[in-house]
């Protein structure tokens, strides 16, 4: 066993060089730039603007996670348990977005939702509204865009969990007279809880670091943490602040991960 350990050395070197070193650099920056000490942290954590961005990020990420996992659950249900035709159609709908870059997707939603976008034009043509609805440059647009991007990622852990459900258990429940509703809520859903947990974890961690989608669809009105860090690096620029913010973000995500993983571990038992 030990003799083979050297085989993973290249990977460790690569990860060390490309992740660990830069991260140590950021740590160092956060404690030294512009002044040595904890000044950057206390500044970041006492700035009302920064705090509101952190709060907004958390709120949006929680909503996005809930929306994505719920939507993904229904889609996965169709994909795994639908009729053959439904299955292949759903599979297409899951796979196609994977081939489209995050930028194109954000632009797609902009042309859909903007003041003179498709949706507003149609609604006006139908005479349902007089003036355009404000559908972009707000949290609504950010949530839609982010969820759309993240749904496919939630599908895979859910699909694994659903495929692992023993068909006979469902047959047994049916034979005992349980209604379809009862079988879904009391048997199928709890049996896929580990998948829901996995999907939640994955989507939440991804969502916290989102940059392009909120920047474009939020239009500066709904700034999230990643965008704020970007501002501190390229616009202001105060790298120490950006570094401190990054470290805080990482600790927060790490903490949430540990908490969720613990629950996940219990569930897997």
């Amino acid at each position, binding site marked *: 066993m030990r003799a083979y350990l050297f085989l993973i050395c290249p990977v460790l070197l690569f990860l060390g060089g490309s992740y660990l070193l830069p991260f140590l650099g950021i740590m160092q920056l956060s404690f030294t730039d512009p002044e040595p000490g904890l000044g950057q942290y206390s500044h970041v954590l006492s700035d009302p603007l920064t705090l509101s961005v952190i709060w907004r990020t958390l709120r949006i990420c929680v909503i996005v996670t809930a929306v994505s996992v719920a939507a993904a659950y229904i889609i996965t249900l169709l994909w795994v348990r639908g009729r053959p035709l439904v299955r292949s159609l759903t599979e297409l709908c899951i796979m196609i977005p994977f081939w489209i870059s995050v930028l194109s997707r954000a632009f797609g939603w902009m042309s859909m939702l903007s003041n003179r976008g498709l949706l507003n034009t149609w609604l006006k043509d139908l005479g349902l509204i007089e003036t355009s609805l404000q559908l972009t440059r707000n949290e609504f647009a950010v949530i839609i865009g982010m969820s759309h991007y993240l749904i496919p990622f939630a599908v895979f852990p859910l699909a694994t969990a659903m495929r692992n459900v*023993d068909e*006979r*258990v469902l*047959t*047994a*429940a*049916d*034979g*005992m*007279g*349980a*209604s379809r509703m*009862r079988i879904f809520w*009391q*048997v199928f859903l*709890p*049996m896929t*809880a580990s998948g829901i947990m996995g999907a939640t974890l994955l989507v939440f961690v991804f969502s916290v670091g989102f940059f392009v989608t909120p920047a474009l669809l939020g239009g500066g009105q709904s700034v999230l943490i990643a965008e704020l860090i970007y501002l501190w690096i390229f616009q202001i620029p105060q790298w120490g602040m950006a570094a401190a913010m990054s470290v805080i973000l990482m600790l927060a995500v790490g903490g949430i991960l540990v908490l969720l993983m613990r629950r996940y571990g219990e569930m897997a*038992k």
Partner: protein
Amino acid sequence: MKSEAIVANTTQIEARSVGKKFGKFHALRDISLEIAEGEFLSLLGPSGSGKTTFLTLLGGYENTTSGQLFLEGQDMTGWTANQRGFGMVFQGYALFPHLTVAENIAFPLKVQKRSKAQIADRVAQMVEMVGLSGHENKKPKALSGGQQQRVALARALAYEPKVLLLDEPFSALDKNLRGQMQEELRRLHRELGTTFVFVTHDQEEALALSSRIAIFNHGALQQVGTPDEVYERPANRFTAEFLGDINILTLDGTSGVAGTPIQLPVNAVGLGHLAVRPEHMRLAAEGDANQLPVRLRDRVYLGSKSRLLLETQAGEELMLYLDNGAGPAAPQTGAELRVAWDVQDSFAV
């Protein structure tokens, strides 16, 4: 030919020419069978013979493609599993993995919307009955195979179904546990009086447990009867060879075997083979009527007995058991011997 105990009971389930096709494949053809109330019927047959299929048809988990099923005289062919309300223990148990033992057993009771107090009582009673006291709050994964098996039994029996269907419930258990569970199943059957339909491909299990055995092969019903009927009087060669060991001799058309004249049982007319169980065959003594010359091919020492492998002059293999107690010295391999049997212990197939 039914045994008295069963004739006295009333028919509960009747299958009339039931068939099942999967696409073009005939999984079952023309099965006609009556199951009496309170009986313990085993479905026995080789793998792929259609036992599970027949059980799922009975339970209403699959639809028949031909024929009819009756429950107490009523046509139940079109009823769903739910409407038939039989209990079923699935191959592999199919317990709810996310629920505890008590919650598993309570599930069908909750479906029936019984009161909380009633459910608690009944669950406690079932847990006690299958000997799982103290394990109520464990999840299935934390239980041994035998314990999971008991939960499955308790869950299927909790709502007092009229009929309990069991699909190879003991196949995953080791030999000791199997014996123990078989005892338990017998006891439950005696105490509850529920009709049991039990699938197995273990013939000893079927012989030991059942009031009657139905033997399947290639989707067709070969024979139904009490254990001793199917063992002592097999209806055809398949049943004869499938249950236990059997010696088969080819008849030569002049009421003899390879030129040696022998007495034939009455039903032998028109059949080509004579069958004798090894335990009914012995080394011939002076004055035995049916004697056949054989040569000893091999002798397998089994402790209290020896198994002799013999060969007739026509090259057919026979087997018989010889006690190793006091008596004449055991014959040596290659010895020329004669075997004998009583005509009433032989049957033509």
